[in-house]
């Protein structure tokens, strides 16, 4: 059964499937009843994260069973009904799929045995409801109604989630069983008020209680089967279900009493009054639903066991008669083409069966004796009339209840009288008649149930209700009587007053009521409009103001704030842990000299970067070189090597880019105060950051290192990884996965660079050939100047080509045991190519060499990946390497780990990426691109491979 529920949620199918599923589920639910009676609660648990108390728990007790019956039974009938209601033009499969999805989530909600699970299914019902309300998404009112419902109920869902987490925190478990057995723990907790407010926010939004009632009438834009199912029988009941579920552990407080009872009472009266003033039949029913939900809420608020019994009873009753009424309205709409009460009249003659059944259902809604509505309403009156020590409560409850009763009688009469009686309809294009029998059948079945429950309650609903009550109240449930006749007493008097009063209200005013739309006086203050206004403000105006105040589009302030914030955070964290700083123990004059130069270079680079780009770059290289020497000095040869080569590649890259930057000539400094201030501010921040980092690194370096993971790598690099260069072994073996990611990043960057440059448009003032290029192209005595340019260095560079390649291969092969490796070798290799470009120019090289950097990248990545996968095929984790030593002729013993193949992949990728970036940039010089802003043809002829 349970597995079935969950599978069914995701199946897409049309009528047959949905009908079968819901019918089967209904039968299964019914069959489960004896077990529920026997066991009290059926619990089925699937562990997910037991440590965190997160399980998939399915728990069916009497209350959940009652809801399951409602959901599956009414669901089945609605599916049947929709078969005839929906037009063939609608996308029917989607409709049924959503209906089924809703049924699944609703069942999940009532069967949830875990708080988190409850909150999740709660959200799911909101989501599916959104989709169903907006089913006719081409209509703007449907979209608006759906959006509003989603926002309101979604907000409630969020509140519920927090409330559930709080409950779980207070009780110490997320299991519903534990929570329900926790007694007064929740009420006594200091967190109770917060939890309760959030919890009620969820219940009130879902069940459309005041002040969140406004979404429900707007949700009536949904197809009528959906209204009948979701917005009267099931989903809106989720709120009261929640209240009932947690009633035993949360209701015993003054706060609960006040909010829930009076929230419910206001909704009850307001809904009933509003229903009276509706022209649209569905609107009338929607407000009536709100009112009845208010009634249930009021009952649950009162906190007496008998009231809880009445609430549960009314949940079932309301679902029966309201669903049938919605179906009746759907039939009327279907047959006459309108739901406007002014245009309808005298339908009883044309549709005798539908009319009769609808009249009976409305009578149940009004609380006429011998119908189920009467019974629960009578119980409601009994409870309100109970003596209460507080005088205000003592009078307000029964009087309010009676007024609401009168109003509900009045709107029921309006419904019946307005639609079914009076002069027959003026003959229009379409003569309404009885719908197909199968469309009527579901409604008739429900009405017959109303009658059965109303006349012989003890037999029809007694045992099931008893079971549901036990689930809420425990074994010592109060005595209650379900019989129709209790003798003459106050509740009966109230019923009579309500029935007579309702008719008296209606009769004198029925003509006016017919034409009026909306409640007089408070019509202007519509929850809907307030909501829309609030939404607009929150998402548009307030957001804009917020950005205006706190945001900036400029990069500099953003970086400033980030750096300042990092400084503050670092300073805050570091200050307390600083401790005593020891005096320097040793001074290394060589390193001191290196950094004297390095430091000066760095500062000078900072100073020169504005007007002398080349100088700044050279100075930056100086600082880089100092860093490189430091690496070598501090026993890190691999780093020194890589740093040196990366430095070279970066320099070439930037040199290639310099040509496209605007000329900037130093001008006489006439700095404004603003600029001066800005610089001073930045210098201050920079100095603070510098001092902070210096202090932090000094503090760390003068302490002994904590026990780290380094020893593991040192001990195992040779025995496990087969290499003596620990750093390289880590890169290609122990931490091979990181390297894999890293080379992927490198490849992606190279492709991005290439992609960006394909569409490169230089600025207008740098389109022309630079002075140096023009000079080289000058013809001097029949020969171009360029032809003799760098003749000797070019020759040397040509000869170096094979030598550099050999060095690269050597570095690659020895990488596992000695400084070197894929990265280093890759950059050396790409430098070999670059040297050729430098020596002979782009065209010369490309006439003679075919370099396909993208293939290098692709093969490199593939090779690295395959090496890793090879290990998987052999049953080891991804990227495990094997190793041995191979005797290559002439070369001697070479470490042959599979890690070497991986490193080969790294090598190929680095070569490809570096060469791709450098060449793509270099090619911009020989292109003759149009400047930005010139007319661009949509498709360009690809003249060369690089453009």
């Amino acid at each position, binding site marked *: 059964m349970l597995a079935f529920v969950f599978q069914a949620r995701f199946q897409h199918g049309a009528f047959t499937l949905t009908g079968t599923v819901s019918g089967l589920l209904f039968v299964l639910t019914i069959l489960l009843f004896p077990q529920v009676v026997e066991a009290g609660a059926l619990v089925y648990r699937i562990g997910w994260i037991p440590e965190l108390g997160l399980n998939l728990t399915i728990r069916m007790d009497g209350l959940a069973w009652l809801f399951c019956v409602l959901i599956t039974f009414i669901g089945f009938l609605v599916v049947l009904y929709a078969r005839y209601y929906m037009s063939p033009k609608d996308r029917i499969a989607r409709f049924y799929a959503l209906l089924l999805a809703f049924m699944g989530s609703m069942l999940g909600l009532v069967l949830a045995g875990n708080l988190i699970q409850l909150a999740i299914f709660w959200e799911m019902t909101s989501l599916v409801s959104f989709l169903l309300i907006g089913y006719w998404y081409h209509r703007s009112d449907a979209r608006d109604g759906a959006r509003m419902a989603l926002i309101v109920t979604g907000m409630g869902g969020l509140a519920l989630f927090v409330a559930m987490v709080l409950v779980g925190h207070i009780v110490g478990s997320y299991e519903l069983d534990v929570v329900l057995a926790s007694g007064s723990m929740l009420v006594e907790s200091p967190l109770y008020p917060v939890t309760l407010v959030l919890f009620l926010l969820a219940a009130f939004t879902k069940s459309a209680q005041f002040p969140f009632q406004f979404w429900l009438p707007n949700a009536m834009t949904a197809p009528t089967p959906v209204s009948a199912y979701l917005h009267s029988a099931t989903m809106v009941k989720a709120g009261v279900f929640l209240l009932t579920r947690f009633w035993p552990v949360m209701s015993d407080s003054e706060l609960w009493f006040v909010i829930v009872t009076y929230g419910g009472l206001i909704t009850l009266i307001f809904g009933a009054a509003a229903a009276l003033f509706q022209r649209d039949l569905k609107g009338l029913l929607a407000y009536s639903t709100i009112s009845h939900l208010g009634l249930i809420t009021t009952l649950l608020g009162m906190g007496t066991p008998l009231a809880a019994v009445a609430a549960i009873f009314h949940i079932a009753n309301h679902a029966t008669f309201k669903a049938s009424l919605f179906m009746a309205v759907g039939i009327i709409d279907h047959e006459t083409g309108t739901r406007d009460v002014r245009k309808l009249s005298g339908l009883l003659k044309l549709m005798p069966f539908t009319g009769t059944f609808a009249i009976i259902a409305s009578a149940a809604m009004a609380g006429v004796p011998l119908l189920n509505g009467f019974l629960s309403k009578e119980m409601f009156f009994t409870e309100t009339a109970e003596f209460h020590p507080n005088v205000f409560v003592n009078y307000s409850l029964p009087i309010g209840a009676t007024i609401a009763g009168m109003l509900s009688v009045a709107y029921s009469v309006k419904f019946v009288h307005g639609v079914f009686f009076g002069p027959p309809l003026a003959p229009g294009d379409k003569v309404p008649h009885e719908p197909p029998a199968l469309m009527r059948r579901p409604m008739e079945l429900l009405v017959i149930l109303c009658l059965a429950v109303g006349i012989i309650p003890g037999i029809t609903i007694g045992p099931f209700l008893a079971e549901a009550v036990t689930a809420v109240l425990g074994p010592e449930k109060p005595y209650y009587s379900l019989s129709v006749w209790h003798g003459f007493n106050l509740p009966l008097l109230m019923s009579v007053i309500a029935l007579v009063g309702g008719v008296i209200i209606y009769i004198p005013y029925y003509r006016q009521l017919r034409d009026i739309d909306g409640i007089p006086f408070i019509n202007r203050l519509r929850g809907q409009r307030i909501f829309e206004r609030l939404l607009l403000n929150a998402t548009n105006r307030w957001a804009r103001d917020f950005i205006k105040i706190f945001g900036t589009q400029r990069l500099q302030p953003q970086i400033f704030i980030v750096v300042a914030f990092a400084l503050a955070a670092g300073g805050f964290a570091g200050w307390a842990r600083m401790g005593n700083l020891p005096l320097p123990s040793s001074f290394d004059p060589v390193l001191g000299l290196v950094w004297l130069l390095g430091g000066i270079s760095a500062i000078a680079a900072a100073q020169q970067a504005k007007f002398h780009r080349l100088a700044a770059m050279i100075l930056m290289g100086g600082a880089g070189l100092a860093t490189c020497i430091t690496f070598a000095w501090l026993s890190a040869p691999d780093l020194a090597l890589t740093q040196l080569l990366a430095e070279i590649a970066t320099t070439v890259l930037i040199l290639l880019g310099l040509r496209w930057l605007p000329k900037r000539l130093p001008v006489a400094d006439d700095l404004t105060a603003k600029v001066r201030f800005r610089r001073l501010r930045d210098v201050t921040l*920079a100095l603070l950051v510098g001092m902070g980092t210096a202090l932090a690194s000094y503090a760390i370096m003068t302490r002994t290192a904590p026990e780290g993971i380094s020893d593991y790598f*040192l001990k195992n690099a040779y025995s496990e990884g087969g290499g003596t260069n620990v750093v390289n072994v880590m890169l290609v073996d122990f931490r091979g996965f990181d390297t894999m990611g890293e080379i992927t990043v490198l490849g992606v960057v190279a492709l991005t660079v290439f992609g960006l440059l394909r569409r490169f448009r230089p600025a207008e003032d740098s389109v022309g050939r630079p002075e140096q290029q023009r000079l080289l192209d000058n013809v001097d005595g029949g020969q171009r100047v360029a032809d003799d340019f760098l003749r000797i260095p070019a020759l040397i560079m040509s000869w170096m080509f094979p030598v550099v390649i050999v060095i690269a291969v050597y570095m690659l092969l020895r990488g596992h045991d000695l400084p070197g490796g894929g990265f280093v070798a890759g950059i050396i290799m790409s430098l070999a190519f670059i040297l050729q470009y430098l020596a002979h120019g782009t065209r010369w090289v490309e006439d003679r060499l075919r370099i396909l950097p993208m293939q290098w990248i692709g093969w490199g990545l593939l090779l690295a990946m395959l090496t890793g996968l090879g290990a998987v095929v052999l049953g080891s984790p991804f990227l495990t390497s094997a190793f041995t030593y191979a005797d290559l002729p002439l070369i001697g013993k070479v470490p042959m780990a599979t890690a070497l193949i991986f490193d080969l992949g790294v090598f190929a990728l680095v070569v490809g990426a570096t060469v791709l970036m450098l060449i793509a940039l270099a090619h911009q010089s020989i292109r003759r691109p149009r400047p930005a802003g010139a007319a661009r043809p949509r498709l360009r002829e690809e003249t060369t491979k690089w453009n």
Partner: protein
Amino acid sequence: MELILAIAIGVLAASGVYLLLRPRTFQVIIGLSLVSYAVNLFILAMGRLRMDAAPILDRSAVNPGDYTDPVPQALVLTAIVIGFAMTALFLVVLLAARGLTGNDHVDGRLD
């Protein structure tokens, strides 16, 4: 020795941060490089400074105390390569922005 390196890191970081806050893209790219030097040295320093310690293992016996800490080195090696890629990407973005906006201000406008 620790003091020298600490000051070096501080100087690099200060120059770099100052340049990061400048309005011209070229200044920012130089600044980024300087900051990455500082950060790389800082990471290396996390393993404590060892001069004359062997980075390459002796095959017969391994006493971890005799060697440099390989973990920061591996991290820095990765950082250098990624830093190179970052510089390259930033440079190209810089050039593209310069081409599109006609100036080299970080916000793409003259002020």
